[in-house]
């Protein structure tokens, strides 16, 4: 992929994850990339592993998680803020992808010990921190693991 196309696709991604009042419809973003819709979707997916549509959904879920965990907004407010107009669709999507309903996620976050102004580490891990919760077997070396 040449540098120019790479940059245009990166710019498209930037716009797709933008959700506030500046959020622009997918069709417009594709047009601005200057690549035919078919190739735009295909090349975007080859580069980022998801289609433009999936990228926007992912951005919505990511933001929703942060807002719900922060606990200052209701589920309805979060739904609006991530750019979805139907509370039902938002809840369904969240449940399907995250595994719990938005309200349950919010409750779970609320029950966690959180440093003010920070996100709960369990939901937003710095992953090497998970090491302390691993079973001892995770630390066997290669030879030991092979023989086991």
């Amino acid at each position, binding site marked *: *992929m*040449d*540098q120019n196309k*790479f*940059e245009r696709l*990166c710019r498209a*991604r*930037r716009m797709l*994850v933008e959700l506030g009042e500046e959020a622009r419809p997918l069709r417009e973003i594709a047009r601005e990339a200057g690549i035919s819709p078919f190739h735009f979707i295909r*090349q975007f997916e*080859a*580069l*980022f*592993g998801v289609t433009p549509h999936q990228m926007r959904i*992912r951005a919505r879920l*990511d933001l929703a998680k*942060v807002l719900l965990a922060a606990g200052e907004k209701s589920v309805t407010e979060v739904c609006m803020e991530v750019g979805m107009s139907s509370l039902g669709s938002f809840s369904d999507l969240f449940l399907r992808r*995250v*595994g719990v309903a938005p309200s349950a996620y919010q409750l779970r976050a609320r029950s966690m010990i959180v440093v003010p102004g920070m*996100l709960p580490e*369990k*939901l*937003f*891990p*710095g*992953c*090497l921190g*998970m*090491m302390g*919760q*691993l*079973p001892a077997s*995770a630390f066997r*070396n*290669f*030879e030991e*693991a092979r023989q086991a």
Partner: protein
Amino acid sequence: MRIKLTSIMVEDQTKALKFYTEVLGFQKKHEIPMGEFRWLTVTSPEGPDDLELSLEPNANPSGKSFQEAMFAQGIPMAAFEVADMAKEYARLKGLKVVFKGEPAKMGPVSIAIFSDTCGNLIQLYQKL
């Protein structure tokens, strides 16, 4: 003190495991569920035997911004050594991996950069 574990942030651990094993050819070493995420590591069949790469969930919003900015600037997050660049490049291209340009000679190495489809650019290099 020794280097036994290194990590790379990935957007989706399921997809990452698939890409790092089925496409790149690494082998899964650990997959231990940790709530919403997993402790997930791979090793290379070409060794060293016990050096693990952890595929870390990129859940933290700050991590995401960092990863996205590095990607857009064309900066690789890891580099893997290959014995035969031309062969590896052709093999990965055949598996629909997107490269930023063709392998290029730069001083003592030949390098090529590709997208791991998990939000990172990865550099391959061959010592010349």
